[in-house]
């Protein structure tokens, strides 16, 4: 019989290095949001998105402040008032009367500084998007939660209304609104308010249907909690993850809608500017001053990319599949 009492020595083991080693991480001891953050920040694309969005926000806040010109100021030569700094191509170190002045993105067809205008436009777009989506979130979330919680005939009526509302293309809403509203920022905001709450309400309702049968809801009901208390104090905090994810997709949608409406000519009006209206004027001058369209397009594209990446990352972090853990 062979000797079975062999004691292993250190030399019997070999240290594995490189990709075969999988570090075990224990998520059980972490809080929910901490594990979400861990997964989110491990996602390279999501981090890139976050950096992009933060950079654009920072520049939208700081850009116009850093510039010596106002966004609607036509820059003139102090010696000869008739000379306007128009059509200076980036990176605008112009000759002649404007020598020594820096126009990083150039100047537009009327002699306004594009650096200031671009970031001012980004500011307008971001403010519109954040404000409307925040209000839409409150409306849509309440609507969906209430509809899902009560169920039955309340749910049925509320969902028929959503069905009709969702069947109206947003273009038609814009057109009807344009009849009795002046074109401009108000029109854009009202259009967004009327359309973007619907996806929020759908998600909130789906979450509610999932959560309302859980024990803690039954427990509070047994203890005599009112419906509104259960909906908004007990269930709402548990739906916040998917809602925030939806917000990250709604914000670029809102930015896009604003840009689209301004491009078509019913959005932001001159001398105000937004990313969309800048692209529109840039497009009109594309054959003479082609660079004019570049900066707003880049800013718009970076914003959209950034928000979409964050949304994707959040969605994965909030609903982690086994392989991501």
């Amino acid at each position, binding site marked *: 019989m062979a000797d079975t009492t062999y004691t292993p020595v250190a030399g019997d083991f070999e240290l594995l290095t490189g990709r075969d080693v999988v570090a075990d991480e224990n998520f059980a001891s972490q809080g929910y949001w901490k594990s979400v953050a861990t997964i989110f920040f491990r996602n390279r694309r999501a981090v890139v998105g976050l950096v992009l969005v933060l950079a654009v926000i920072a520049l939208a806040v700081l850009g116009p402040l850093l510039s010596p010109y106002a966004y609607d100021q036509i820059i003139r030569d102090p010696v000869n008032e008739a000379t306007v700094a128009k059509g200076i191509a980036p990176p605008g170190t112009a000759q002649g009367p404007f020598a020594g002045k820096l126009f990083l993105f150039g100047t537009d067809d009327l002699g306004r500084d594009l650096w200031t205008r671009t970031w001012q436009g980004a500011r307008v777009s971001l403010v519109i998007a954040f404000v409307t989506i925040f209000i839409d979130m409150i409306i849509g979330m309440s609507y969906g939660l209430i509809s899902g919680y009560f169920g039955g005939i309340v749910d049925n009526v509320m969902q028929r209304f959503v*069905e*009709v509302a969702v*069947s*109206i*293309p*947003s*273009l*038609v809403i*814009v*057109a*009807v609104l*344009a*009849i*009795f509203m002046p*074109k401009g920022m108000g029109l854009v905001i009202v259009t967004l308010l009327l359309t973007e709450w619907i996806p929020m309400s759908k998600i909130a309702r789906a979450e509610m249907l999932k959560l309302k049968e859980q024990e803690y809801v039954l427990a509070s009901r047994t203890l005599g909690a009112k419906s509104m208390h259960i909906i908004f104090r007990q269930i709402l905090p548990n739906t916040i993850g998917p809602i925030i994810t939806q917000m990250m997709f709604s914000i*670029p949608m809102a930015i*896009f809608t604003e*840009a*689209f409406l301004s*491009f*078509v*000519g*019913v959005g932001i009006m001159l001398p105000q500017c937004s990313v969309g209206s800048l*692209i529109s004027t840039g*497009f009109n001058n*594309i*054959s003479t001053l*082609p660079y004019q*369209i570049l900066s707003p*397009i880049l800013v*718009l*594209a970076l914003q*959209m*990319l950034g928000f*979409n990446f964050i949304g994707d990352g959040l969605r994965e972090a909030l609903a982690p599949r086994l392989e991501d853990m």
Partner: protein
Amino acid sequence: MAKYILKRVATSLVTLFLITFMLFVLVRVMPGNPFPSERMSAEQIANKRAEMGLDDPVLVQFFRYIGGVLHGDFGKGTSLYFGAPIKTVIATCAYNSFSIGGIAILEGTAVGLLLGILAALNKGRFLDGFCTVFSILGVCVPGYVFFILLQYCFSFKISLLPYFFDPSQFLYSSVLPSISLSLFAMSIIARFTRNEMVEVMDSDYVHLAESKGMTGGLLVRRHVLRNALIPIVTVIGPLVVNLLTGALVVEKIYGINGIGKLMVDSIAGQGVDYNYVLALGILYSALYIGTMLLIDILYGVIDPRVRVAASGKGGA
């Protein structure tokens, strides 16, 4: 199945009717003057209002209007294209829009499918990466950025293709607009096809078929594609919506005389043309609702599992 279809058709018609009613009431009741011209005296405006029947009760007006619409009569514009019946104007514009939109859908689906299939078959290699980048850009970056760049590159920098759309040279001048319009569909379909294919290729029945010795084209055609293609029908909905809004921009950029441009003309000018807004609103809503209906029915026809589920719960 027949019951399900009937029910869906009925709800769609009711929805369309409700929307039409809402639009009509909004357009008629909301404050505002349909005749913004300053040269018209009060008396002239009153005459015009009487002629158009604007002083009757709204419900009477509504049913008169519906009666007209059912006969294909949308009335005349209040400030746009004076005198021409809206029907003929819309018919001309719709022809341009639909022909370009149709080509765009064909291009988008064909190229998108091809790209998606190739990416899935070359999973993890260059083509797959290219497909991913392409679809991310297509979804995230607004379409008109590409439209403008395409026009700038191919019409302005290299005069390869005409700057504007010209119905008399349809084929030649519709290349750029239709490609522009198809980009979004292309990217969505490519991404969707790729993901579906990858998923199906990893399923048990494909592994079974492989273990029985089936390889290559036959396997892909008979087992993978058939099942991967089913969910693609669901992405048609967002594509049509995008086509409606995208068409607006494409028509502006390429100067196409289509319904999108008509829509912009009716609201973006000095005054708003009430009758065009109404007619186009109904048209757009009908298009949208019709597409949704078609997708639902198509889905039931293609995938028997949906049919069973739907009839099991009595529709809905």
